[in-house]
């Protein structure tokens, strides 16, 4: 018999699979992460990709995977930030976050706040310029480079640069006011 799993899943199932795998990896990383090497979103996304590529799942393209993975990453990080904010006084999530120097806790709290604020600002941008918001999502939440972003969105590097540069100013204004 042929493999019963269809080679091309519908987008919904794909993103659920990616989300679950990413979350598992991210949690594992955060728990075990030490100061001696950098935990990067890109690494996580790539790790997830490699992991899932070994399975029977298939994607139309690598770019499409990055697209889906980045959205998943954004969800994970926002969930994480929200949980962190809700449980500043302790709890599992807090322990999970503390991988660096402990005196950094105050700062982490501020940054978590910033990630949430940035997400808010990004939602505003999403309303008026969905494509540009997608660029930010890929770059900031997905950790993709300019080139990877261009590939994922099938746009020129120059366009992504322009979008990125102006989006940063837009978001900065949004955060500062």
């Amino acid at each position: 018999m042929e493999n019963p799993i269809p080679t091309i899943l519908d987008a919904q199932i794909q993103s659920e699979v990616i989300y679950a795998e990413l979350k598992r990896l991210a949690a594992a990383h955060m728990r075990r992460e030490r100061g001696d090497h950098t935990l990067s979103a890109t690494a996580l996304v790539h790790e997830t990709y490699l992991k899932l590529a070994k399975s029977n799942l298939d994607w139309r393209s690598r770019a499409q995977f990055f697209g889906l993975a980045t959205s998943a990453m954004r969800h994970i990080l926002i969930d994480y930030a929200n949980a962190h904010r809700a449980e500043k006084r302790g709890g599992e999530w807090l322990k999970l976050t503390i991988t660096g120097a402990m005196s950094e806790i105050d700062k982490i709290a501020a940054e978590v706040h910033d990630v949430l604020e940035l997400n808010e600002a990004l939602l505003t941008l999403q309303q008026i310029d969905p494509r540009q918001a997608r660029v930010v999502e890929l770059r900031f939440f997905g950790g993709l480079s300019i080139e990877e972003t261009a590939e994922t969105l099938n746009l020129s590097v120059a366009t992504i640069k322009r979008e990125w540069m102006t989006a940063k100013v837009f978001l900065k204004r949004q955060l500062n006011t």
Partner: protein
Amino acid sequence: MITNKTNQADLWRRAKEVLADALVLPSAERPDFVMTRCKDDAELKIEVMSLLSHAKNSTDFIEAPALESIHGRRAEDVTFAQDKKYVGARIGAYILSGEIGRGGMGVVYRAMRADGAYEQQVAVKLLKQNFASDKDTRRMTRERQALAQLNHPNIARLIDGGNLDDGMPYLVMEYIEGTQIDFYCRTNNLSMFDRIKLVRQVCAAVQSAHQQLLIHRDIKPANILVNTEGQPKLLDFGIARLIDISRDANQTQDMLSPFTPRYASPEQMRGERVSVATDVYGLGLLLYELLAGASPYQRIASGDVSTASDAIEVVLADPLRRASEVARASTAARSDISGGNSDFNMLNGDIDIILLKACAKLPSERYQTVAQLDQDLQRWLEGRPILARTPTWHYTFKKFVARHRAVSAMAVVAFAAIAIGVVSTISQKRKTEARYTEVRQLANSLIFKYYNKIQELPGSSAVRKELAAEGLTFLDSLAAESGSDKVLAIEIADGYRQLMIVLFNGHSLPHLGDKMGAASAAKKAYALLEPVIRKEPNNNAANGVLAELDNETGVILAQENPVEGLARIEGAIQRYAEILKRDPTNKDAAFKLVQTHFSVVASAMNSRLPAEKFTADAVAAFKQWLSNRMDEQPVQELNTLIVRTQFRQAFANKNYADALKYIDDEIAGLSKLLALKVNENSVVLQGHVNAAWAAKGVVLIDDNRAAEAIAALNKSSTQMKQMLAIDGGNVNTQLRIARNATHLGKALLLQNETKGAALAFGTSADEYEKLRGKDVPAYVYPQQAEALWRAAKANDALNENANAHRYANALILFAQERSNIFEKQPGQNWLIDAKAIAIKR
């Protein structure tokens, strides 16, 4: 809604095209570019300019992906790869000469003054920041300014700081050459005593910072360097708060990963607020490791802990081992502490207790101040019993601090300051009386001043209650110490009195509704005052507190027993009066005497007793008080204003008697003011006096008292002329001289001295004429017209035709200039008269 969103989207689409092109230009060229590009599109222009105003410092903004940001870390090697560009760069007055270290959050450079003004080497830290919002930058600046105030020989100074053009924050710090403290102890084979002494120096530095409400937050061996003179220098004070620099420059590597939280306090790990107790923990741990040669945590010491989360678990949960046991077990301790066994055998129960107390997991179980820790170390060195063993009254403070950490870090530090004060007060056996008093006052005022501040915090009533209780404990302990010190006894009595008000009071001041507690506090105050007043019935300070106490308790008493209550308050008034008899300069007693009068009035009214007499007494007391303050400038100035107003009202009502009384009052008041040294040469005040004399003259004319009027007016004019000699060109003075002459003429007319009057009117008209070309107030013109008219008339009556013609013609000319004056009475008639005189031959 939809339209709005579409509009927004459209505006953004157009704006970002311009923005993208503008961003690649140097910032100076951007505005012109935008103006040209947007042409007449004002909306677009505004939008792009607004966006550009936020473009500053956006280079690094969100360049680090979210995951790295959340971790408080970034792919530092990527970004720091470009750091070489900073070597040779100029930052403020300094030129970076070379990298001396780098850590998770930044790179440290050695730097020299660029102007070569003097040889000064500094360390410059460039801090990596993920988000530098304007808010963060402002907060950092404030924080930095506070840290820059820190000036202690054992603390590396923060000299300067700011942001580079690209937004990167930097700190300029004192450059310290030295050896990390643990390494220093090891290589120099320091004895245990010397190690403790070294840490005590660090304690003193930290304590001095705490008194300025600054907490280090990151005390660890890597942050303490010992220089060649053996002086420890504390680095990075408060920097942990600014931005954590955990892997720091010019400090050697920890045994574990640089990110190991082995020196962070449990509360920091729990993400709770830090307080002075956090630094106590840091110092305790530092000393522990220096003495025992290993971490108090078994699993850390044995190297079983390799990850941060394991370390957290250990610090939060594992028990602390006794330092003496660790030292015995630790080979390191044996080999590197000089004196060998005999020395580390001295790590006995007391030092164990000190260290366990300093490193307790709960901040509330630690020494509440570094001073306390330091003091116990001193006691240990001197072989005296340590305080950690015996529970003392200040535990209550400690508990308070621990329980209310949430109120604010400020509160914690403020209370720590109280504790510091009190501890040094009680325990150091009053080293010097002056210092004792100073500390006592500090502690005393902190309690009650802080109480008021806390009132403003929402939901603070529980804290206030507790604070009142702490205040009581504090005072009780002081009272026990006061002995035969009567000054202290009076001061403590006053403390109890204040506490009483906090607990319950009969005025409308905030209180906690604890009448019993208030009564008990008052009772203690009376008990302290009684022996003092028995021995010294005329002690003003004691009587002052007693009077105040009688007033406070009298008001409460009057609510139930008006007769007794009122009698007691009146007794307080009497007491103040006696104080004032002995010391007439006692301003406080003078003020409170009046205030207490109003206590009587209010209590009588509250009890529905007739209060008219009390009110009259109170007003009289106030007036008496006021009259004694007349030599104080603001009082006198206001009084003068009131008198002047009353004068004008009386004069307008043609009540000459009152008007003259008021103007005499005014002259007297102004003269008092002029007598004050500061006002000796006041042109303004002298002008007021002269004007008052003139006003008096005017009243006297109206009252037909010509001779007195002339005297008053002459006095005014003489003084005016003297003033003019000093202050020539003062138009106001010249105008008054002119007007006075008119009045003088009128007074002379009353005496039928027509010649003198004509002369005076003529002088007046001439004086006004002198002012031609100068701007004068509008009310002057009719006065000038009147002077001309009177001069013309008076001279005409005397058949002084030449003069009469001259003034009549002048008036006719003046009427052409100021026609409005002559369109109505009396100007109309003046003009008719003048014309009649002018056509006479």
